[in-house]
């Protein structure tokens, strides 16, 4: 499939879905990850379970396109509808193997800021805040970050940590008292980045079709290291695209049709 046959968002959904393993318990969240979960269920991860912080657990995609987790089709045919406490109990009790979060700013060690651009003391932009993102980052066994790859978003150091990645690297999470495993991948509009298992620094792992290494480096706010062999992100298959378009028929999330 050629790059002109799909959008960057569709590629990111596919990349997100591929991070989901069969039998994963996925803290789904909203937007692209929600599509990624539905796609994974229809492809390689039929046994994955999705949980939603409003109090929903389901093991098959909703019967209609979702805009939010609170939409009525997400409740219909769920396995369990309950309270946020029950869902978060699963998360804190280490029953959740994978979470997804987005971010406005990320840094070299995968820390995310979705609250105060400019920091809490000198607020430039007030963003919506953590939502469940910080909880997922702290408590899930591993999590995937999905965001735009721009120089102003990829910083050496975020000015405020909403959702903790690896802090300043190495065993920071352990020292600070966190139980969860930290970020395992960053899916961006340019490529996929992963983390060095020792230093916990973010490392370029693959580049999306049509993007050059230079473009990635130029749009990263620090001296980004690369994996020994940088891969080319595998484009969506025809079936994957078909499924994404089924779950986002109007292209609200993946074809920029309505914003």
């Amino acid at each position, binding site marked *: 499939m050629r790059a002109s046959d799909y959008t960057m968002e569709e590629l990111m959904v596919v990349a997100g879905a591929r991070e989901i393993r069969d039998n994963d318990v996925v803290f789904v969240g*909203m937007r692209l990850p929600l599509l990624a979960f539905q796609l994974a269920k229809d492809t390689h991860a039929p046994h994955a379970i999705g949980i*939603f*912080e*409003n*109090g*929903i657990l389901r093991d098959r995609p909703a*019967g209609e396109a979702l*805009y*939010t*987790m*609170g*939409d*009525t089709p997400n*409740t*219909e*045919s769920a396995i369990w*509808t*309950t*309270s*946020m*406490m029950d869902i*978060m109990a699963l*998360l*804190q009790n280490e029953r959740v193997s994978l979470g997804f979060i987005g971010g406005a700013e990320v840094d070299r060690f995968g820390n995310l800021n979705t*609250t*105060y651009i400019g920091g*809490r003391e000198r*607020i*430039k*932009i*007030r*963003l*919506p*805040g*953590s*939502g*469940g*993102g*910080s*909880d997922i980052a*702290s*408590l899930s066994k591993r999590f995937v970050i999905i965001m735009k790859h721009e120089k102003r978003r990829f910083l050496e150091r975020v000015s*405020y*940590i*909403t*959702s*903790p990645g690896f*802090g300043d690297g190495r065993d*920071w*999470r352990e020292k*600070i*008292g*966190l*139980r969860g495993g930290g970020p395992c991948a960053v899916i961006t509009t340019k490529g996929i980045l992963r983390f060095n298992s020792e230093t916990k620094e973010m490392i370029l792992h693959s580049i999306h079709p049509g993007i050059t290494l230079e473009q990635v480096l130029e749009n990263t706010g620090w001296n980004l290291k690369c994996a020994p062999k940088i891969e080319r992100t595998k484009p969506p298959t025809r079936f994957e695209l078909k499924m994404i378009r089924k779950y986002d028929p109007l292209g*609200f999330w993946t074809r920029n049709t*309505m*914003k």
Partner: protein
Amino acid sequence: MKEAVFRFVEDGDSVVMGAALEAAIPFATGHEIIRQRKKGLTLIGPISDMLFDQMIGSGCIKKVIAAWVGNVIMGVGYNMRRAVEAGIPKKIEIGDYTNFTISLALHAGALGIPFIPTKSLLGTGMISEGQPFKEMECPYTKEKLALVPALKPDVAIVQAQRADEEGNTHFWGGSGVTKEAALAAKKVLVVVEEIVSKKTIQRDPNRTLLPGFLVHAVIPEPWGAHPSPMQGYYNRDHEEYMTYHQDSRDRKGYLKWLEKWVSGVKSREEYLNLLGEEKMKSLLLKRHRRSLPVDYGY
């Protein structure tokens, strides 16, 4: 509705709204609070969706205690940004929580304990000085813990499907932090699609979210959650969220929106007239899916 808001929501109160997250948001109640020009309120909720933004813009809010303030499908809330960044129409304070920790704070309030420990928050900007959270070493495991102090709101607005006249309330779907909020609050207002007989409640007591003895007023207000969805009654009106996002981009646009949808109507009935029958029809359920009965006999 008018009377309940007048009597039970007082200036300066802390009020939980939107406890079920993106569904069952008490928009009708929020709009009535705006119309009654309440002052100095503190709003509490996990994900407020755009209701909190609407209320912030009206100037009746002093503080927001929440995990996320914005418009869930569109992103940022412009009134919230204007208030925090430029003090328009009024400077507001934001108490930053996460979804889980707001849930824990209300749970501690409901449980009657002063705090509850968690493994979330550690290493984040939220646990810094001046914030309500503390760190401690666990006396059992010696691990680091964050402590979340109890929240005891003055008022909880519970938006639900049905209740009897005494306030015994049935709810179905994901309830978010609704129960915790109601059990923690000093006053509880229940807003429902319909009032049913007490027998209907008693025939399925596991469906009860909240017993009536904790409820101060039961308000029948059909479509009271629009544009958010109410399981079993109507679907989400996504379009309204998109329109509001555009309308509220600048202050002038927001005021126009406010005049049209809130100040310019006297009640939910007038609001629904404005919304129009055709729109309402398009939001009705297309596919019914009824639960199967269970036997409570003996």
